[in-house]
């Protein structure tokens, strides 16, 4: 029993760590991995989702609907940003660093000015359960399930729906897609919106477990970028395995040597993986295939 409970304990940590990386990075994997926009405002879209979720939930909506509102709000905000700013910068990806950093400054400080330095949290639902000597949160199990659902959902969207296929075509060869009748402007806008909506979903999902402050997005952003880059250009062949590998490494080192070494091990792993696989995990898998 004791043996089983510690195995469960470790799997729980592992799942928790991987779920965090998957959710933190899935939106960015689309915006950055697919579209090449280095979105430093990714954290602010997460914050946007979290704030809207918290506000609507406190106003009386049930949490799932609140999260849906947060997701939609972040998605719409993303489409607006795409129309106003990002679509002028597709030709020069490095400039998106400056533009999105600027957006992040404006949003963080604007939120502080308008809504104050903090808004009240909403509390984590569902309570806890016991395995052996330890107790665990149900909600965090739900986060792991959510991470899996998001991955499967994304795979379905990009491989089985008309939008997904046109979107991939558009991003790979825009003029070809355009001559085949795709509305590329709309597609870009929708794809970007999908990425930020996922960021909003992440914010909504984590909102009950975190402190609600304007800078809350920053605790996601490093992990998000690292996961996406290690993954490489392909969302499914890259981001998911990258989150898996990095999640395992981080969980192992955190349980062995504490949080600091967990973080350092994660970063060192990134350096090593990129050195060994200069095109990321998906680049390596695709090369193996070809």
């Amino acid at each position, binding site marked *: 029993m004791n043996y089983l409970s510690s195995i469960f304990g470790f799997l729980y940590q592992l799942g928790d760590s991987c779920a965090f990386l998957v959710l933190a990075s899935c939106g960015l994997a689309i915006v950055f991995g697919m579209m090449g926009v280095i979105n430093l405002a990714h954290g602010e879209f997460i914050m946007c989702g979290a704030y809207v979720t918290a506000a609507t939930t406190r106003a009386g909506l049930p949490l799932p609907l609140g999260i849906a509102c947060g997701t939609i709000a972040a998605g719409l905000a993303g489409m607006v940003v795409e129309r106003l700013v990002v679509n002028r910068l597709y030709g020069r990806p490095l400039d998106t660093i400056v533009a999105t950093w600027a957006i992040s400054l404006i949003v963080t400080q604007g939120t502080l000015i308008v809504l104050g330095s903090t808004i009240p949290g909403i509390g984590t639902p569902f*309570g806890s359960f016991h395995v052996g000597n330890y107790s665990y949160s149900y909600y965090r199990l739900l986060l792991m399930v959510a991470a899996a659902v998001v991955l499967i959902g994304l795979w379905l969207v990009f491989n089985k729906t008309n939008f997904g296929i046109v979107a991939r075509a558009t991003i790979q060869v825009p003029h070809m897609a355009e001559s085949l009748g795709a509305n590329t402007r709309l597609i870009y806008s929708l794809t970007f919106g999908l990425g930020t909506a996922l960021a909003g979903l992440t914010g909504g999902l984590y909102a009950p477990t975190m402190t609600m402050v304007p800078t809350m997005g920053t605790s996601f952003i490093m992990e998000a970028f690292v996961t996406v880059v290690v993954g490489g250009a392909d969302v499914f062949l890259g981001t998911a395995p990258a989150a898996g590998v990095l999640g395992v490494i981080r969980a192992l080192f955190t349980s062995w040597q504490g949080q600091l070494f967990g973080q350092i091990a994660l970063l060192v792993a990134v350096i090593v993986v990129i050195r060994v696989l200069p095109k990321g995990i998906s680049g390596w898998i695709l090369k193996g295939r070809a």
Partner: protein
Amino acid sequence: MNTCTRVARPRTGTISQVGLLLGFFTLSVVAAFAANPVKIGVLEDQSGDFAVATVCKVHAIQLATDEIDAKGGIAGRPIQLVIYDTQSDNTRYQEFMRRVLQKDKVDVVFAGFSSASREAYRPIVDQLHGFCFYNNQYEGGVCDGNMVVTGAVPEQQFSTLIPWMMEKFGKRIYTIAADYNFGQISAEWVRNIVKQNGGQMVGEEFIPLGVSQFSQTIKNIQAAKPDVLVTLLVGTAQSSYYEQANSAGLHVPMGSSVNVGQAYEHKRFKPPTLANMYVTTNYIEEVETPASKDFVARFHAKFPNEPYINQEAENSYLAVYLYKEMVERAKGSTKPADLRKIIGMGDVSFDAPEGKVTIDPKSQHMSHTIYLAKVNDDHSISFPYIWNDIKPYWLGEAGADLTKSDPHKQYTPSDPPPKRN
């Protein structure tokens, strides 16, 4: 922001001098001001990660200034505030500390929230012979004649909290602390006091700043089965711990020196996340004395939307009054040397909202009334115990004495000041 007029000094234009022109408007002090004002520089983080706990410090200083000005100012001179937003950024502290001392030529500076920001500006204060109040609870040990610290220090908060908690809940203690100076030094204090009182440390874990996910930490605590959990977590990311621990069903009594009193977590989190937490603080707005209630009423009259009046706000408020007391007793002089002579007399004190406070001449830290605040299930606050007049004894006992020598250093229990013979 301040009442100076800005006069741009004309320059002829090359490209970089356009930058100069933009960058360096010259502040010229208007001599026509009724009487030569006492200038107080205020450097606090009004944006960025620390803004939660520091915006109200600025408001408290403004409140004290208004009150003092209404009653005739400091030694007959009005107070002029020079306020800069340091954006939770250490380099901004370095830039603006230089600016207030060299350009605005203020008489005194009230500055800093994080210990890192204080250490960033302290060399500049010493270099330019400024006089500076650090109105913040911190890890203790700053021994610098150019600094006065009005916040509480570990010996005041832990020598009260830990023995009380051990008596009530048991002797097995677990500490989780932010992995930097404040957390490590505070944890050292906890360790020492637990040992002196015959307790046992069953675990100690340090969390890097900015970490927001705590599953593993929660599991470690459950494995160690402590009677008391001391939480020394700092920053908004780390405060996510409470929500996660509560949802994982971890309900060990918690003790802390930073929570509640600083970033009012009990107001921000949904009950009962923080239930059963005990905090030693020298002030929070729930303190029920008449002086405190009066203070809160005056504060809200001037700042109706203030979310919370924390201990740092009260520290900042009383610091203005302490400065007034010093200057008036020094016959209107604002020279640091004169003021330090007054501090050296050992009776610079003020009847603050928390109770009477006095500056200790050896360390230039301050005595405090320490309130034990308990967070109830509905996140209301009760005060099971109050200690009066707790002195900042450690630096003096360890051998530091600012009336005799001024080392400009920060000491820690494991790196104490040299014993004098």
